[in-house]
């Protein structure tokens, strides 16, 4: 059968990630192009011991220029990242996956086979490192008002300033109260930073690998003070969750909330070897 020449230039192949050939089962999952009616289901492209998770897409949607334009449409981006994630999440339930970055597209299948051949050794090493492990995300959200209340209750200096403010009258009471507020704010910031560092250390100790995201610092009001990712062996998940529960219980009265997300495909650890 001859391919329609008018069609050939429009077709691209979107790559989600890499799995081992052994035990890899084809997924009947719709690909990133399916929502627009121009793409295929996900299929496995095998080369030697590795398989790429691939689906056909239209270059009218995923070509260089078109992709850049589409990325500026939040609704489009949301739909596509969710599909990308769902494909990898489904694959990760059955096998170890090396996730690729969103938006990797080829014009033909041949360079994907070449990639599998060329990167065989490093991809196999990465797969071995990720085997039997899942990624979990933990965010720490700081309620600075509540943390400040806790500082007022527990800090000696704050108690002394409060007592002094109560004893003084008029203008001097005002200035003592100002000093008290500043002291509480500074103590709360320092405490938030310390508690967040400690939470990350504790969680990292219960994980095989850990990375700290570039979350908003503890200075922001009610902001995220920690955005950590943890690679956890499935056999160690109970211990990891136990550590998280313990921290959550301990931190809750201080106004710090810990939120768990996942399991994620190991997005944050696919390039772990190369990380300094």
């Amino acid at each position: 059968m001859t391919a329609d020449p008018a069609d050939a230039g429009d077709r691209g192949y979107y790559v989600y990630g890499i799995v081992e050939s052994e035990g890899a089962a084809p997924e009947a999952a719709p690909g990133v192009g399916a929502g627009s009616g121009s793409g295929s289901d996900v299929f496995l492209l095998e080369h030697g011991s590795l398989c790429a998770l691939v689906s056909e897409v239209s270059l009218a949607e995923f070509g260089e220029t078109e992709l850049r334009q589409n990325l500026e449409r939040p609704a489009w981006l949301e739909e596509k990242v969710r599909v990308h994630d769902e494909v990898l999440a489904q694959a990760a339930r059955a096998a170890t996956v090396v996730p690729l970055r969103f938006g990797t597209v080829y014009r033909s299948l041949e360079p994907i086979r070449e990639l599998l051949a060329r990167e065989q050794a490093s991809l196999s090493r990465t797969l071995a490192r990720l085997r039997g492990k899942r990624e979990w995300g933990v965010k720490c959200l700081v309620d600075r008002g509540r943390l400040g209340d806790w500082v007022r209750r527990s800090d000696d200096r704050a108690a002394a300033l409060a007592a002094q403010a109560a004893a003084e009258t008029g203008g001097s009471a005002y200035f003592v109260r100002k000093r008290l507020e500043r002291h509480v704010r500074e103590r709360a910031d320092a405490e938030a930073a310390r508690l967040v560092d400690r939470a990350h250390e504790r969680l990292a100790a219960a994980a095989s690998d850990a990375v700290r995201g570039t979350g908003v610092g503890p200075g922001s009001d009610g902001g995220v003070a920690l955005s950590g990712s943890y690679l956890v062996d499935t056999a160690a998940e109970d211990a990891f969750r136990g550590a998280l529960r313990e921290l959550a219980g301990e931190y809750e009265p201080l106004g710090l909330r810990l939120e768990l997300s996942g399991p994620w495909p190991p997005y944050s650890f696919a390039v772990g070897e190369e990380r300094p």
Partner: protein
Amino acid sequence: MSARDLSPADQNVTLVELVDRLLERGVVISGDVTIAVADIDLIELRLRALLSAVETTERRP
């Protein structure tokens, strides 16, 4: 709790997490089409601005 069964408000947070992971992490290979780092920074900035705007609207009584 799994990230896959959250309330709509939490879904916003998850979307940011998802975009962080999918666009900033993962193995980069040179496809015929790939997204440039500068584009990724811009996308994330826009998305964060958009989502915080949504959140503000929702919180309004």
